[in-house]
């Protein structure tokens, strides 16, 4: 597609794309195969060591292999980013498109709701949701365990993921909805939409063949920035102890556990920190690259 040719011409953005796809998503999926050690295995006679042959990236204060934890952390980041962003994108696109195309009371309703959600301090709200939704989720899972006899589900931490998804997408969808609504409003006024109407196209066909395809380019940029944002928010949540709980590995949680170590063992913070920064940087750079490739001005 033309877009891909122009995006790929920006070599550095392509590099970032490869880093993300391989570094994050592939490692995430094959975490069990790739990680040299079981992330939770504590090796007490090798505590807080620097990088060595046995432990390429060294070990943390409980003797756990840093590299394995980072690899498993990639899995968390991969899952959280994909699910949270796709959730907020789907909600945002549907609500945004409808309110943009239909207008009237529906549009006003969605806009006022998103105004209110914007008024919320998003971090406070996310932590609040995580702190409140989680226990009721635990109760729900426990009942499910009893009802269907799936042992260990509660302990598996899927609740943490569920909580993080809901929290992140609840504050993310209004942004996406507004973006789509703006796009739909401007595309709706274009003459080729009136042309489609004049040749007798149905409303359904107009929305999905003419309006939405031309709205999606800025969404691509927003999604890539959103993925980066989701990784950052997840690490913040875990850092504050409200997101993914141990034993599941999360970069944010790793940094929180070692936050006191910046004087003695800085590598325990900087290595996961660098990984988070690189991942988010790549997402943002891809977003910039997409934006330039799509921007009509330099076509």
């Amino acid at each position: 597609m033309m877009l891909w040719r122009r995006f790929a011409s920006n070599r550095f953005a392509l590099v970032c794309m490869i880093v993300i796809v391989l570094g994050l998503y592939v490692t995430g999926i094959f975490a069990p195969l790739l990680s040299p050690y079981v992330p939770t295995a504590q090796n007490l006679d090798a505590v807080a060591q620097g990088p060595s042959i046995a432990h390429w990236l060294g070990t943390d204060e409980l003797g756990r292999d840093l590299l394995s934890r980072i690899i498993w952390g990639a899995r968390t980041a991969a899952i959280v980013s994909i699910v949270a962003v796709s959730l907020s994108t789907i909600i945002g696109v549907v609500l945004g498109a409808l309110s943009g195309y239909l207008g009237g009371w529906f549009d006003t309703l969605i806009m006022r709701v998103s105004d209110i959600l914007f008024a919320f301090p998003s971090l406070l709200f996310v932590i609040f949701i995580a702190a409140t939704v989680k226990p009721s989720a635990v109760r729900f899972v426990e009942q499910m365990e009893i009802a269907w006899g799936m042992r260990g589900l509660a302990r598996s931490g899927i609740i943490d993921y569920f909580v993080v998804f809901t929290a992140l997408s609840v504050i993310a969808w209004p942004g996406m909805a507004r973006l789509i609504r703006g796009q739909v409003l401007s595309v709706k006024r274009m003459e080729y939409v009136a042309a489609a109407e004049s040749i007798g196209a149905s409303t359904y066909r107009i929305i999905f063949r003419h309006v939405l395809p031309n709205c999606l380019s800025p969404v691509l940029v927003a999604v890539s920035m959103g993925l980066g944002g989701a990784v950052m928010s997840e690490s913040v949540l875990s850092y504050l102890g409200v997101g993914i709980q141990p034993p599941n590995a999360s970069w944010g949680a790793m940094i929180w556990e070692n936050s006191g170590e910046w004087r003695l063992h800085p590598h325990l913070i900087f290595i996961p920190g660098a990984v988070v920064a690189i991942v988010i940087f790549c997402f943002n750079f891809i977003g910039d690259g997409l934006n330039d490739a799509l921007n009509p001005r330099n076509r």
Partner: protein
Amino acid sequence: MPIGDEILLDVKDLKMYFPIKSGMVFQRKVGDVKAVDGISFTVKKGETLGLVGESGCGKSTTGRAILQLYRPTAGQVLFEGENLGDLRGNKLRKVRRKMQMIFQDPYASLNPRQSLGSIIGEPLVIHGLAKGKDKQERVQELLRIVGLNPYFVNRYPHEFSGGQRQRIGIARALAVQPSFIICDEPISALDVSIRAQILNLLEDLQEQFDLTYLFIAHDLSVVRHISDRVAVMYLGRIAELADRKALYENPLHPYTKALLSAVPIPDPTVEAKRERIILTGDVPSPVKPPAGCNFHTRCPMAIPQCSQFVPPLVDKGGRHHVACIRV
């Protein structure tokens, strides 16, 4: 061009008001933009009616209201005797097949994400006229008819010049073999030499497919070249409606006279001798049009009665209608 007597389109007192809303939460209506303020005219089969006027006079809105792209606020649009206002959903879509539109901006009237094949083929699909191989052939035939290389079927709009895009728009309109086409300023965005190509093409197509045109434009010389009858619009109303020769050689309405005198003629000797009627001031806003005859604020012949009541469109003989009590 044989123009029969059968009336294809009959517009009766068409009105199109756009509400102005304001307010944060509860959208209150605070006024109306009276884009089209009661116009009536008929178009016979095979005829080309020119609709001319300056920007803001409501000519484009008229075109879209006729095609029901906007639901008219009042008045009736009868197409082949059928009142389009009563039609909804599929019934309206069926009639749409016979009425098509060509748009002004070649760069905005084609969906950038669609190839030529799907742009021109889409109407065929929507009305189930052709599928697969047959559709492919029909599309290539249409490309040939409008003077484009059928080989372009898989190309995208951004690879074409303004003139070529306008031809694609015409091919799309022809796809469903319409009998009536509204040309909304089809050439004003084009270069001088390209305009001639498109005008000639439109004339050839009219003969070849026995089409009826409503030709909307602001360029009076172009309208004179292509139309059989011409309606001059000012601020949402028709000021004068007559045969081409009568209107250009014997304009009655003061606005038409001023308009014709303002159009420069590409001939220095003629230009030097022409005596211009320069209208003062600007076109009033359609939100609060002047009372009575909406031209009275700028009209050199205005008298007090002009602002008391709206002058009706009266036939002054030879189907030469004019809306002015001073003529």
